[in-house]
């Protein structure tokens, strides 16, 4: 008797970007054990090479519609768009980390491996076509980030950030999982397309509604909407600045990718319900985020609250709905990623008396000491306010325009008023940098080739998106079409 093992045909091409990144992660772990043991800088280069390769793979596959594992993993334009954003964010974070992590103590191979593994989770999250994959990818991303947040093992704030992030993140994941269980019970499937097509979707089964609510709680934690935002300021403040940049951009983009796909594809039958819910979430999130940011003197904390407010703006686009709303959210995420990485990047490269400079007052007179760095930070902050001709302005323009076209004029008005409030706390930093006398021993630039290059790339991105947004906006619109078929 010949027992033949039949190997099922699995198309791995749909997983290619994630495979490249996870492969680079494994390679980093392996090389970590080989000499040279003293310096780990070369591992950063390996990680960067892996991310750039994934970026190239992603760009080369634009326009495909790959599916694998019975539609559990999808590689359509939507996923590819997010893959570009995520790989880009992760690559800049690795470049910023190269000198930062070594300087602040604790450079090691695991750092880069964990960044790559969490990036893998983010890529899978963007490609998820099934709630099982959503859960697994979210956990892969989060578990790596919990460890990264506490990477400076001897610092109490880092440990505290890690613990808070872990406890609240795991709490949120169990809500998400319970929501998945409810949706499975209501529809008999975990596949997004089959959930949308099930009869429960039309009858308004109570289990289905409970599932939606629990899913929104779980995702709300991950993208930090009010009232599930409590962890964000503490984690952003306590985590290493490079990791904060990754949490604020990559993980947020990935969670948004999954949230939009789940809402627009699987739960399209409940659109009136989740639109109403997201309307109020958007208003509360942007208002509370901006008001709390006004009171902050710590820059990392201020940027944390500001990123909560930006999530509120992005929810406006989801409420607006349709191709223009979803496309505007994607464009906003792209602009937000360029800008936020840059802002945190400047913080990562500034030091005062051997410590990280995070207080606004430490940046007094920076323009006198280092005009280039001050101008860079100023441009990022102006883009966050939404001043033309920078990326933030165009992104807000598309977003609020979509809201008005969708008939949500009041929501757009509230969002614009919020942007005006936000200008105050961003401009305060500019006032400190340009109009205050420099303090003795204020924040100074720590030379770093890779970090400087990362800032330059982010800056070019912010300006390019602002000056010629049309091609990128077309890409974002093209990316959402696979969802709205």
């Amino acid at each position: 008797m010949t027992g033949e093992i039949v190997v099922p045909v699995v198309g791995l091409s749909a997983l290619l970007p994630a495979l490249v990144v996870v492969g680079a992660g494994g390679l980093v772990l392996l090389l970590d054990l080989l000499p040279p043991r003293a310096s780990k800088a070369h591992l950063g280069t390996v990680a960067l090479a892996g991310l750039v390769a994934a970026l190239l793979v992603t760009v080369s596959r634009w326009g495909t519609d790959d599916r694998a594992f019975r539609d559990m993993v999808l590689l359509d334009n939507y996923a590819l768009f997010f893959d570009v954003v995520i790989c880009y964010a992760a690559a800049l974070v690795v470049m910023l980390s190269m000198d930062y992590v070594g300087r602040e103590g604790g450079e090691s191979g695991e750092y880069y491996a964990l960044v790559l593994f969490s990036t893998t989770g983010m890529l899978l999250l963007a490609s998820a076509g099934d709630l099982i994959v959503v859960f697994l990818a979210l956990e892969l991303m989060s578990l790596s980030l919990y460890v990264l947040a506490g990477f400076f093992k001897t610092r109490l704030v880092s440990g505290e950030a890690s613990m808070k992030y872990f406890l609240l993140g795991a709490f949120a994941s169990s809500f998400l999982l319970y929501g998945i269980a409810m949706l499975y019970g209501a529809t008999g499937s975990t596949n997004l397309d089959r959930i949308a097509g099930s009869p429960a979707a039309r009858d308004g089964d109570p289990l289905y509604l409970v599932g939606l609510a629990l899913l929104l709680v779980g995702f709300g934690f991950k993208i930090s909407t009010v009232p599930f935002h409590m962890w964000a300021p503490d984690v952003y403040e306590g985590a290493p600045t490079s990791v904060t940049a990754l949490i604020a951009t990559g993980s947020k983009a990935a969670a948004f990718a999954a949230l939009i796909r789940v809402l627009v594809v699987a739960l399209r039958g409940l659109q009136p319900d989740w639109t109403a819910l997201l309307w109020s979430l958007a208003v509360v999130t942007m208002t509370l985020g901006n008001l709390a940011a006004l009171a902050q003197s710590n820059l990392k904390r201020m940027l944390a609250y500001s990123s909560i407010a930006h999530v509120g703006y992005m929810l406006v686009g989801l409420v607006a709905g349709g191709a223009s709303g979803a496309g505007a959210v994607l464009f906003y995420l792209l602009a937000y990623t360029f800008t936020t990485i840059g802002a945190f990047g400047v913080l990562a490269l500034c030091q005062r008396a051997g410590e990280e400079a995070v207080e606004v007052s430490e940046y007094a007179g920076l323009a006198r000491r280092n005009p280039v760095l001050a101008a860079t930070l100023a441009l990022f902050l102006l883009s966050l306010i939404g001043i033309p001709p920078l990326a933030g302005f165009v992104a807000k323009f598309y977003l609020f325009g979509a809201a008005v076209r969708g008939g949500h004029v009041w929501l757009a008005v509230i969002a614009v008023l919020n942007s005006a409030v936000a200008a105050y706390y961003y401009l305060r930093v500019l006032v400190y940098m340009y109009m205050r006398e420099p303090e003795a021993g204020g924040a100074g630039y720590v030379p770093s080739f890779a970090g400087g290059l990362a800032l330059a790339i982010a800056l070019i991105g912010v300006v390019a998106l602002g000056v010629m947004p049309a091609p990128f906006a077309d890409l974002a619109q093209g990316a959402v079409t696979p969802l709205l078929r």
Partner: protein
Amino acid sequence: MVPESYYLGLSATLFSIGVVGVIVRRNPLVMFMSIELMLNAANLALVAFGHRLGSPDGQVLVFFVMAVAAAEVAVGLAIIVTIFRLRRRLSVDDLNLMRW
């Protein structure tokens, strides 16, 4: 034969106990145990639904969740141990370096 709705009731109860545990208790280990309880409540619901629907998807999902929960335990305990080494005390009330 126990009706399937009993299992769902038990699952909802376990989940609620878990939520209350996380909110009320102050020891990170106990909070973490409560989170595990919530995950297992979801597992029970998945198995019950899978049985009703006659599809294996629910049971398979439970295996994934167990694996994830194991990974979560490893990471969670490591974080708790790191904090304990620095502080020699274990209560979330001590995590107050950063607020507002």
